[in-house]
């Protein structure tokens, strides 16, 4: 169990290094294999990226303690998380399961592991979810006629503030320039 966590942490750190809450920049090695329920689709997807030293959440959140389910601004912990994800209609516990913080929960109450967070995203973002499963939303690498590598929603989108931050573009092309030089001389 510890070994798994260690490996997951290493992979997560590597993933995080590449995916700095801006669009994913590098290829990922194949990892866990989640499937959409009812689908025979087998895809290679790396495990979800976890923030440093946070998981498992139950190390702080004792399941025995009473939960304050009122929507509020957090003061004791997690203040650094800026929630910019439909805050008019939802807050933390609409996705994080109040009873078991090591899991998420769907609108039906069904608990789902973090590895299946895409199902949670897909509840509201149905069209994107459908497109993601078809390979049209999000980045894929690999073979058009064979094995492909997907990414989870959370590999590119920060679930608390999913909108991409702008990035620095690569350099512009060089505009065409005349090379005025005497015949026989060197050009630019």
């Amino acid at each position, binding site marked *: 169990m510890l070994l798994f966590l260690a490996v997951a942490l290493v992979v997560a750190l590597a993933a995080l290094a590449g995916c700095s809450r801006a669009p994913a920049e590098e290829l990922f090695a194949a990892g866990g294999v989640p499937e959409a329920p009812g689908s025979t689709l087998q895809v290679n997807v790396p495990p979800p990226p976890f923030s440093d030293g946070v998981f498992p959440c139950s190390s702080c959140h004792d399941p025995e303690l009473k939960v304050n389910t009122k929507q509020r601004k957090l003061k004791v912990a997690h203040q650094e998380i800026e929630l910019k994800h439909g805050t008019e209609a939802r807050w933390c516990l609409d996705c994080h399961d109040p009873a078991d913080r090591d899991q998420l929960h769907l609108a039906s109450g069904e608990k789902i592991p973090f590895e299946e967070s895409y199902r949670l995203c897909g509840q509201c973002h149905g069209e994107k979810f459908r497109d993601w499963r078809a390979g049209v939303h999000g980045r894929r690498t690999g073979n058009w006629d064979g094995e492909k590598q997907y990414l989870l929603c959370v590999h590119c989108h920060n679930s608390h503030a999913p909108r991409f931050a702008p990035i620095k573009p690569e350099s512009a092309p060089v*505009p*065409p*320039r005349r*090379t*005025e030089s005497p*015949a*026989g001389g060197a*050009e630019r």
Partner: protein
Amino acid sequence: MRVLRSFLRFVSGSARIVLRGNSLYWSWIALLVTLIFVGARAYAHQLSTGLLATSMRDQVSWAFYIGNFTFLVGVAAAAVLLVIPAYVYEWKPIKEVVILGELLAISAIVMAALFVLVDVGRPDRLWHLIPGLGLLNVPASMLAWDVVVLNGYLVLNVVIVTWLLFTLVRGRHPAKAIFTPLVLFSIPAAIGIHTVTAFIYSGLSARPFWHSAILAPRFIASAFCSGPAVLLVLMQLLRKYTRFEIQDLAIWKVAELMAYSMGFNLFLFGAEVFTEYYAHTEHLVHMRYMFTGVEGHTEIVPFMWASFGCSVVAFVLFLIPRTRRHWVTLNLGCLLIYSGVYLEKGMGLVIPGLTPDTLGEIYEYGPSRGEWQVAIGIFAIGFLLFTLMVKVATPIMLGEFRVGARVASDAAPRPAGAH
């Protein structure tokens, strides 16, 4: 065998003729040879560096060289079109100058071919165009068709001229039954070469400035003006410095035909201007680039207005009989019409067609020094070729150069003041 011997005497006699001349002649030759060297040196640099030595770039990938090519194909086509009044309408005063038109056509085609040679990125691969050896993409490619018709036209003219001169030089007259059809065939051939050249442009849907049905008629109309201008000047020079008799009437008739041709050209131009400016679609940008500039890019604007001005003034000068018949205004008109059409076919066709490019980018092109030098070298080659051919043809036409069993093959001595 006798024919071969006569031919060899024709060749050696011609060589003697071109090697004989007064100081004016030799100064002219020296100038041309110098310019050819300048061009050759610039081309050698271009060969080693690549076409980067020109100012062409991806955005404006055809420019000065192709503009000159297009203009010269027009000259070649028009020169031969003097044939129409001579042979179709049996207009005697022009008959003797038909051959001069053909000589001009040959020189123009050679120059046009040279401009293509210097424009291609891989001149060592031009053999790829030879059907059989290479692969000529007919019927799809208009450029491939142009290769066919231009070479065919060159061969036609060389055959006609060589045969005519060789026949005359032996004191005979060419058999009308063969000669006349050949010459008459050069009429549709001339229209054909310039139409196919126009189709290279007008077939390109990517370039809305060119993609117009009116382009081919405009090419013919503007060609009719430019080619004969050179001939008019030449005819005046010939009758002044040689015993060549050319009636005033012939010269004036040619000028009159040029006037109508320019009138038609201006009409077609007006039609284009109306069509673009009235509806002012996105495609207007190319014409605006020519006449008012776009986004501060105004480099070709003065030239376009100059071209228009030259064309209109020349039109008027040739239209009014008094100015047409006055030698000063006639020659001024020739200069103006030549310049006007040169600017129109070069800058006024190729550059605006490619500026802005297909993705809206504007690259302001202007020929590099190397391009100027290569172009001057090519024009010098053409002028040299034309000079040498005319120098040989004139005494033949005048009966002063004959070969045969009895007649000496040297040209008769020139009167004083002639070349």
